[in-house]
């Protein structure tokens, strides 16, 4: 689904990503761990093609097509979608209209989609205007549910979400990925292979209680330094910190 080859990225004059290689096959969910400032969000913004992230070397291939210099909207139309951690407010644009924009003419029932995310009361409010952290996540997921991307980039989907809502967030992500996952007693298990892929940034790892991951990777100072089972990585980080991931990979 997604291949990243020897990717180097600068923001301003500073190199943020240093020779990143990554492959996410069809139907797989990968987790990206890393401390603050390691370049996780920069990688996601680069994959989506946002301005300010200058690719100086390497390439990004999505569904077999080189998208390294493709405009943002073309990547979205090709099937890439992103859940933003801190999306901007768009004054005067109602959430309902935004969801319809995401659907791009597809027949859908916005009310029903919103109801599933307990978000009906927000449809007639301006997009992200005075939304709490959890409301922003539900708004983002509602848009992605309408958009139905094949590859989902999720930037800290659990941050700012209260304990009651995090299961809802997890369920929605699983539905997006076409994965049937039951989360009981914090131990999810995969019931069926999904048809869509995901790259999930997490700082705390809490989301792993609600979604299943095929692989975990650690980004540290702009370079990937570990790739293995996501829950194992999380355990190591919790016990020994990120420095151990760097030391171990050396």
């Amino acid at each position: 689904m997604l291949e990243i080859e020897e990717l180097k990225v600068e923001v301003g004059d500073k190199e943020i990503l240093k020779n990143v290689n990554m492959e996410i096959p069809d139907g797989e969910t990968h987790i990206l761990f890393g401390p603050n400032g390691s370049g996780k969000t920069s990688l996601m913004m680069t994959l989506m093609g946002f301005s300010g992230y200058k690719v100086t070397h390497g390439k990004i291939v999505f569904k077999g097509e080189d998208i390294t210099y493709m405009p943002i909207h073309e990547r979205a139309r090709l099937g890439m979608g992103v859940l933003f951690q801190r999306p901007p407010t768009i004054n005067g644009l109602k959430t309902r209209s935004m969801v319809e924009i995401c659907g791009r003419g597809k027949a859908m029932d916005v009310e029903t989609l919103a109801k599933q995310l307990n978000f009906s009361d927000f449809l007639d409010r301006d997009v992200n205007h005075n939304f709490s952290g959890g409301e922003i996540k539900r708004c983002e997921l509602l848009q992605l549910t309408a958009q139905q991307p094949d590859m989902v980039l999720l930037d800290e989907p659990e941050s700012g979400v209260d304990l009651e809502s995090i299961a809802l967030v997890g369920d929605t992500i699983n539905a997006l990925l076409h994965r049937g996952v039951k989360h009981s007693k914090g131990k999810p298990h995969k019931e069926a292979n999904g048809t869509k892929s995901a790259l999930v940034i997490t700082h705390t790892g809490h989301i792993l209680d609600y979604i299943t991951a095929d692989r975990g990777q650690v980004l540290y100072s702009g370079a990937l330094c570990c790739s293995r089972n996501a829950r194992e990585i999380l355990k190591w980080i919790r016990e020994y910190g990120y420095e151990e991931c760097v030391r171990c990979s050396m």
Partner: protein
Amino acid sequence: MFNVENMPDNTCDINLRDYDSEAKDHDYVDELSRIETKDADKFLNVGVDTHENGRAGTFIQKDKSVIHCKSCQDGVDLMGISQALEQYDRIGDYLWKNVSPDTDEFTNRAKEKPSGGYFIRAHAGVKVAHPLQSCLYIAKEGFSQNVHNLVIAEQDSELHIITGCATAPHLMSGMHVGISEFYIKKGAKVTFTMIHDWGEKIAVRPRTVIRVEEGGVLVSNYISLKPVGSLQMFPATYLDGKGAVARFNSVLVASKGCFLDVGSRVVLNAPGTRAEIISRGITTGGTIIARGDLIGKVSGVKAHLECKGLILNDGLMQAIPQLSGYVPGVEMSHEAAVGKIDQREIEYLMARGVDEEEAISTIVRGFLNVDIEGLPPKLKAKLDKIVSETQKDMM
């Protein structure tokens, strides 16, 4: 009293001698369906529906002639100011009591060369089910329409007024001077929506003062999306009674050659009073000066001012927010931002599959789309259409 010291500098020179205060009389029209189509279209652009669907009354003045006037609701007086002067013996308690004729050359002109205006009064306890609509229309080339409007909402009444000002198509020159005095008495509410559709060479000088008593509410919406030569207005609202509230929304577009100096002042004179001024402006080559002035005179008042301006292409967008607190215990804030469209907003929409041009259009449409309380659906649909057309013109 509203005096000249309260006015912002008038940076646009107007020679009053260029305008004629005389105009021929126009015939009264009993049935609005008989209004000429070209005029009716202009009226609808400023919210005046000649089918009178969902309206509590209609007042239309063409040049200096009242051509239609009818109130459909008991307890609501609606008439020309000249008629009110004859019929309403207490009118002297209100006219020129808040605006002095000596304020400036425009107020002086309205006093010396009056050409009508409307009188609207809701009797105590009367709440209108539908909006009243009024239109002040200039049809004569070079005419100076100098009106004096008086609005009285008696105790516990409720008024909703949609007032449109417009000029005949292809009018090259004209001036509108509008003195407006509002009295919102104890527990009354007035929602006042004003839509302007002037010509590109028209000079407009409204002079408005509003007094709000205890528990009274004023909601004022002002929309000017079409080109206007020169517009300068700075209504002053005095919240004199405990718990009185004033809310101002304005949406302005200035294309090349337009000059809009638009602001509001609210003086919070009593405990528990609240005020909010929200202004949005887009310049595509013209000048917008967006003023806001909040004055807290006693403790326990709350006020907020928000001014956002977009500069598409070039032009001047100047935000002048001003807060004055005279005692401790006032809670006043402002937020002003001027600039181009935030690139993050454009790219956020693009990440949902929208190309850059459509993303910008969507943001501009949203920016102009201020929610206006109680706007009739038909007018809302019309405004949405005008916003959409304006946005296309800008692009």
